[in-house]
């Protein structure tokens, strides 16, 4: 790992402190281990539905870390478990959602797992229909601009998400009004089974130019690069210079969801090839190269994190399901429906 320009480490150059690195690393690990745990719970028949994150941790944690928690707004999509961990979800929260428990902060067990949302954490409630959140993000960014608040908005989506009209509308409006809005595309090359080549004419990041603002592309498995591109965009947005589209190229390691079987559409050699680019070991190599961690500490952290995840899953599993008597609540803010 080369030292930076003025003999500085790459992360120091980017303004990241050691505690940032450790925090980023922790979020990646938590996400990965939660993912492994939720799959095993699924196989045990305890979690009917799983949406995996593995492979995306670098892109999510790297991009999310560039935002200011408590001030900026996150409009994620279902894949973004690592991202919401950055934004303030706990591992316990994740499993409450997985099991559909009453205390699930996203929806109190009403939505499928991985439909993140939490007002307290500035994570806007998400749904299943693809790309709707991108327009909410535009509305939020417009609001921040109108109010002259120093907050910016980030929205995340897959490359499949770029196909919906909502995405086009948000890109267009963000361009016209120079909104403080960052579009982050986690391009894992597949939308369920549909390959990028049948999903996206041209290249995702090149679309931005047609809307009159910058588009950049980066290696989604390089967490520092993801951070760098996003931080630059965030700084521009905060300076009133408008939106950026960031394409982070990555891969998902599992099937689309627990209902999917990727073997019909992805050659296993391709999956293997991308697993060799795993963002986590890659970041570990970096952390070692700059003497932030060594192998034995890594082993220790990994072990402790795994235990933390297993414990949280257990506690969440024992938590209560929502009481059916609450099922008709919150349809309206004023009228009771049943």
């Amino acid at each position, binding site marked *: 790992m080369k030292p930076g320009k003025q003999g500085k480490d790459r992360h120091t150059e980017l303004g990241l402190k050691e505690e940032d690195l450790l925090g980023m690393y922790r979020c990646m690990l938590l996400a990965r281990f939660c993912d492994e745990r939720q799959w095993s719970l699924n196989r045990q028949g305890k979690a009917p539905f799983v949406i995996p994150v593995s492979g995306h941790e670098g892109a999510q944690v790297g991009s999310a870390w560039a935002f200011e928690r408590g001030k900026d707004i996150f409009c994620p999509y279902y894949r973004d478990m690592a991202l919401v961990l950055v934004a303030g979800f706990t591992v316990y929260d994740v499993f409450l959602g997985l099991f559909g428990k009453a205390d699930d902060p996203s*929806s109190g067990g009403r939505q499928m797992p991985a439909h993140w949302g939490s007002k307290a954490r500035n994570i806007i*409630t998400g749904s299943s229909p693809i790309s709707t959140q991108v327009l909410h993000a535009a509305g939020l960014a417009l*609001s921040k601009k*109108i109010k002259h608040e120093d907050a910016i908005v980030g929205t995340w989506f897959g490359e499949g998400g770029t196909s919906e009209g909502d995405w086009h*509308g948000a890109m267009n409006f963000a361009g016209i009004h120079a909104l403080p809005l960052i579009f982050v595309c986690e391009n894992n090359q597949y939308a369920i089974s549909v390959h990028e080549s049948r999903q996206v004419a041209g290249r995702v990041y090149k679309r931005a130019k047609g809307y009159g603002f910058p588009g950049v592309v980066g290696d989604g498995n390089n967490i520092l690069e993801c951070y760098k591109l996003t931080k630059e965009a965030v700084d521009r947005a905060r300076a009133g210079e408008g939106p950026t589209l960031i394409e982070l190229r990555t891969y998902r390691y599992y099937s689309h969801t627990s209902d999917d079987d990727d073997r019909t559409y992805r050659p296993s050699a391709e999956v293997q090839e991308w697993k060799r680019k795993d963002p986590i070991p890659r970041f570990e190599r970096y952390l070692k190269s700059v003497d932030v961690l060594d192998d034995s500490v890594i082993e220790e952290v990994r072990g402790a994190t795994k235990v933390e995840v297993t414990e949280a899953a257990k506690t969440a599993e024992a938590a209560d399901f929502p009481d059916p008597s609450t099922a008709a609540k*919150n349809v*309206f803010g004023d*009228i009771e429906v049943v």
Partner: protein
Amino acid sequence: MTVKNVVQAVHDTLHEAMMLDERVLVLGEDVGARGGVFRATMGFLDDFGPERVIDTPLDECLIAGLSIGLALDDMRPVAEIQFADFIYPAFNQIVSEAARIRYRSNGDFGVPMVIRAPYGGGVHGALYHSQSIEALFAHVPGLKVVAPSTPYDVKGMLIHAIEDPDPVLFLEHKKTYRLIKGEVPDDRFTVPFGVAEVRRQGDDLTCVAYGLMWHLCLEAAERLAGEGIEIEVIDLRSIYPLDMDTVLQSVGKTGKVMVVHEDNKFLGLGAEISAQIGEQALSELDCPVVRIAPPHVPAMPYSPTLEHWYLPDADRLEQEMRELASY
């Protein structure tokens, strides 16, 4: 008190709401320099500036989605869909998102937004500038749908809509815009949702309508009064929530019901009203509930001959009422 027509009431009420509450803003196609194609936001751009009077691109999906985002940040967006017929590109944002956000987040988020949409026919608008869309949206839990049609109700319900915690589809019958005039108190007041208004008392027949149609029903009813037939005319005003109490009370008195709307019959609001009357007042009915609504064709045609064929008018309503009253 000032006498205004319906579109003036929309204009003035919106203007006052923007004066009183900084969070209120209007957005839509041509709401700026043009002041709206029906002039509902005339002069707003000068008075409130482009940050609160937003000419959007031609993209209803955007208009709805943007409004949701604004509402989530505690703004009070009042979006205009230029013609109700053009709301369908926004269907997903309204139905999947606006309507479901409070429920799906278990009350963590709410979407206080208003969508204004001029609807209805009789203006040579043909297939795509005449539609009635209330049934499609009233079916969707999480949405409120109202259709005031007097200047008074427009003011009272628009204020209510803007202050409502939930997404409200605010339907304005475009033919009433300049046709219907009435007194409007200058002070602030609200008309609650879910409360119908008995526009005329009568013992012989209950006529349930809303929008332009109750005005026509009233006209027909007045004519029949000369023949000694007394029709009770109910203006629902609110589609969801629906005030069945007022309807049922009237049915208890008359035993005969006619529901009239411009929206087509199959799964139109008349079906729901008829079903609820059947559920709650079956024994009080002297005869079947009659639904007067356009035939099952895809909206109003353009030619005067065809438009006339499509839309119920006072003559036809008079005849239908006479027949039913003497059943």
